[in-house]
């Protein structure tokens, strides 16, 4: 149907719609490509379309939903999706760049390198903008730890994250780890990074100025990671997945460290026109996205690209996902400045082409032209396909929500220890001690509800950051689950004394072509959007990871939220642990509901995730957060801890475990009567400890904000008494701190 008019173009293989199918493109997409080009694509061109139009790069099945989120306003300096990462104005001429991204599929196939390169990729997103990474976090999900494969994945992922972050020199300061059966074959590895940059000294991922040289910086290009984005990340797991291991990239944190220093110096020197890191889809993604953004084109000679082996084809070079590479457009005439900086840091820099003004990406290999594509046709927001997907409420939802379970209050003490030592709740010390959490000497506290970092550039100021998502809630009620993920993340940063200002998100879901999965996706986004609007925390960007499923079984919908909070005065912050005996323990916020749905208690009791997600009244939540933040800033609160997974009993136990010295609690008997009071995960509650002299002021403040405030007990030395639970802080610590290590190492 289309004429073979590629007379001046060379194709290694004759392309048909069958070839397109093998590369993961549909017949309709293939026809669309032929239409755009007015001819049959060359094999290299088809490869480029297959990755650029893959789910991973094009967001073709998610973009319509993402656009419903609040994606501008507040302190945002660039709109969501505009640059490699979100950018938030923190005042006094500085900004924070931050983003979260998934590396689930590579980590499932090769946990060490998958996780390591996930960290490497997100760090590059931050420093490509000119920001120096100052904190890293990660949100992890695995199957149950009684499974040897899960232990292998967990150990590999933790080693990979540590290996990369520790060597690179960024402190890994927070995150979360959950264990649920649905993640057994498909673990989630979401990596987040935060960087600091002067406003006005950022670099943009843009190509402009015909004749400006295009440089490739960093490592040479090899055959690793070819089709990582399209064939691995954009489809689900099956028996062939093991064979996909060669599509996983191999990371070199030392090379990345040099690339970081060289990149920041290059940007500061003023010779950079635009810059983009090479992550997914390597050279083809960076050349086409930078060109499309600048309404420009590029002419690239692949013979100039430094290669790890001879004879690589144009197709292989364009699609390689070799790590630690950057594409930079340098201002013509300033090449010598760039070269001197790269030589100083021993970072190879090679000119591989130049910018053109006709919007066409042209690629040459072995003296023949192999690609001639309008850049615009390749990218999201340009010619990449956009799909409307059907959705339908999943059939499991009515069943799980109406499931009956019998609560036996005589088991409360036994259940308390079971919950406290379940790997999802217990201390993650075995994991976080393998990460350098202090390098760069900004880390003020990593043991509270969010990590607290000072900002050296702005003495007295700081920021708080956390990740959060309880995917069980999103499974039971996708809308409310999405909402709670945002609300809880905001509550966490409030608990340390920071004002929530913006989020980044990593949306992990199953196959979007499954209408029930798409319903989860759509509803979770609707919930996140409502919460973000109410709490005035816009979405700065993030990433969508679909096809998280294996054997026709999708993971729980997992919309992970990375929340950024700002601290105006780092001397006015709080930790989660008790600080003085005699302090009064109070619950701020919702005191009217009793719920057990979706709780760790129900999981331990029945082995299943049942009931409905906890209620959330977002206005009540907002009032609570405002009141708590005001109280912390006024110095009225000694410690604050979000009441979440495991309910009040676990929140109190954690306050004792994290206490200064050995401080426990004596709780009035009326607050630990039954399982729902002890273990119910009712939302919008913060447990605080308060010096007796501040009680009255705190009560007044709460009344002003229309927030409930209930005294439930006192801080005491060594002992812990709640309902029928009578124990010591020493025993709590011993059990809580050793449970995960015992489960992993056996």
């Amino acid at each position: 149907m289309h004429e073979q008019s590629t007379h001046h173009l060379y194709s290694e293989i004759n392309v048909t719609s069958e070839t397109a199918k093998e590369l993961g493109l549909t017949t309709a997409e293939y026809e669309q490509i032929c239409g755009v080009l007015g001819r049959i694509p060359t094999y290299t061109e088809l490869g480029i379309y297959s990755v650029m139009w893959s789910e991973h790069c094009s967001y073709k099945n998610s973009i319509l939903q993402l656009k419903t989120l609040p994606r501008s306003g507040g302190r945002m300096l660039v709109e969501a999706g505009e640059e490699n990462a979100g950018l938030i104005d923190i005042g006094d001429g500085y900004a924070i760049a931050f983003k979260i991204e998934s590396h689930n599929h590579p980590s499932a196939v090769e946990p060490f390198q998958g996780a390591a390169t996930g960290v490497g990729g997100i760090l590059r997103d931050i420093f490509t903008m000119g920001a120096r990474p100052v904190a890293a976090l990660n949100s992890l999900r695995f199957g149950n730890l009684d499974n040897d494969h899960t232990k292998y994945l967990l150990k590999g992922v933790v080693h990979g994250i540590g290996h990369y972050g520790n060597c690179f020199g960024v402190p890994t300061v927070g995150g979360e780890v959950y264990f649920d059966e649905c993640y057994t074959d498909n673990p989630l590895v979401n990596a987040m990074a935060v960087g600091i940059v002067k406003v006005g000294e950022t670099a943009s991922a843009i190509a402009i100025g015909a004749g400006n040289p295009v440089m490739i910086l960093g490592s040479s290009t090899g055959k690793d990671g070819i089709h990582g984005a399209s064939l691995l990340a954009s489809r689900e797991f099956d028996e062939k997945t093991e064979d996909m291991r060669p599509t996983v990239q191999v990371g070199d944190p030392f090379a990345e460290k040099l690339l970081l220093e060289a990149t920041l110096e290059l940007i500061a020197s003023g010779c950079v026109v635009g810059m983009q890191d090479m992550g997914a889809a390597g050279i083809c993604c960076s050349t086409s996205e930078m060109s499309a953004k600048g309404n420009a084109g590029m002419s690239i000679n692949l013979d100039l690209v430094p290669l790890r082996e001879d004879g690589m084809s144009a197709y292989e070079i364009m699609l390689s996902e070799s790590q630690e590479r950057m594409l930079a457009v340098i201002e013509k005439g300033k090449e010598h400045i760039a070269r001197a900086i790269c030589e100083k840091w021993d970072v190879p820099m090679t000119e591989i082409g130049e910018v053109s003004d006709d919007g066409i990406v042209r690629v040459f290999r072995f003296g023949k032209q192999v690609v001639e594509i309008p850049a615009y046709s390749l990218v999201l927001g340009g010619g990449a396909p956009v799909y409307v997907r059907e959705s339908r409420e999943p059939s499991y939802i009515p069943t799980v929500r109406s499931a009956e379970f019998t609560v036996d209050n005589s088991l409360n003490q036994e259940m308390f220890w079971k919950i406290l030592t379940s790997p999802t709740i217990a201390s993650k010390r075995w994991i976080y001690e393998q990460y350098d959490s202090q390098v760069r000497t900004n880390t003020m506290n990593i043991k509270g509800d969010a990590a607290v970092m000072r900002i050296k550039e702005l003495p007295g100021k700081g920021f708080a950051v956390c990740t959060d998502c309880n995917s069980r809630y999103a499974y039971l009620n996708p809308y409310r689950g999405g909402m709670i993920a945002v609300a809880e993340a905001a509550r966490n940063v409030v608990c340390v004394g920071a004002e929530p200002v913006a989020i980044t998100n990593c949306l992990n879901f199953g196959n979007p072509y499954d209408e029930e999965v798409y319903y989860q996706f759509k509803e979770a986004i609707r919930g996140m959007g409502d919460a973000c609007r109410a709490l005035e925390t816009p979405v700065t960007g993030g990433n969508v990871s679909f096809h998280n499923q294996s054997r026709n079984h999708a993971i729980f919908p997992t919309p992970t939220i990375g929340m950024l909070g700002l601290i105006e005065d780092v001397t006015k912050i709080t930790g989660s642990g008790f600080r003085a005996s005699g302090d009064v323990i109070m619950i701020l916020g919702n005191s009217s509901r009793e719920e057990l749905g979706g709780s760790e208690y129900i999981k331990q009791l029945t082995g299943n995730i049942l009931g409905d997600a906890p209620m959330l009244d977002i206005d009540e939540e907002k009032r609570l957060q405002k009141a708590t933040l005001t109280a912390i800033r006024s110095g009225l609160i000694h410690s604050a801890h979000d009441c979440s997974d495991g309910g009040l009993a676990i929140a109190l136990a954690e306050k004792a475990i994290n206490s200064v010295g050995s401080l426990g609690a004596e709780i009035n008997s009326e607050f630990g009567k039954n399982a729902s009071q002890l273990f119910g995960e009712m939302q919008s509650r913060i447990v605080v400890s308060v010096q007796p002299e501040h009680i009255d002021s705190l009560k007044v403040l709460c009344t002003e904000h229309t927030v409930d405030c209930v005294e439930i007990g006192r801080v005491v030395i060594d002992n812990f008494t709640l309902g029928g639970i009578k124990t010591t802080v020493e025993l709590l610590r011993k059990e809580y701190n050793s449970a995960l290590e015992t489960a992993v190492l056996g």
Partner: protein
Amino acid sequence: MKYGIVRFPGSNCDHDAFYTASQNGTAEYLWHKDTTIPKGIDCIILPGGFSYGDYLRCGAIARFSPIMREVVTFANRGGLVIGICNGFQILTEAGLLPGVLLRNSSLNFVCRDVFLSVANNTTPFTSALKPNQIVRIPVAHGDGNYYADNETIAKLETNNQVVFRYSDAEGRLTEAANPNGSINNIAGIINERGNVLGMMPHPERYSDDLLGCSDGKAVFQSLELFDKSNSAKMVEPTSY
């Protein structure tokens, strides 16, 4: 005191050492490709990190950097040198300190606060501390397991060259308090002449009250004390 902070490719505690050194004295960076050490430097810090990616063996490539020839000369003429973490590893590779740092006995990287018992407070780096004083300072390393043959260990002990040992909060030298399996709970040693210190814990990380602990500051305060008493006695002790 004027500090020179060496930056190797892959150093990542260089900023931290610089920051802390300049809070206590003055500091400037020295580049790994440099072939001279500027006049006026009193103390050289080899900071933590992963010099040259720690490929081959921790510190094994860094010792061949052009600057290391100068650091060795500087040390041999009595100049003060501290190697922290990766810097300690480099000092052993360069032969300025005996022994070697092996993989942690857990085989895992470990980042946590440890207690150190001061074994020798008569050095320029520890004079602000009391004998057997307990300080809390963090470690962050994968290869901090100090090892040397029996003869060397015996010599270190006899000469009072062990400066810090891992201990519990009460100063007991227990196995549980040892984060990496080091012989005799050794956390830091000094050379025979007493001017080159190597230690795995990071004093520069806990030198600021804002970060919750400033016990590490004692090392820098000791050096300032040393500087004061020396400048009274000597002219340019390290010039050459």
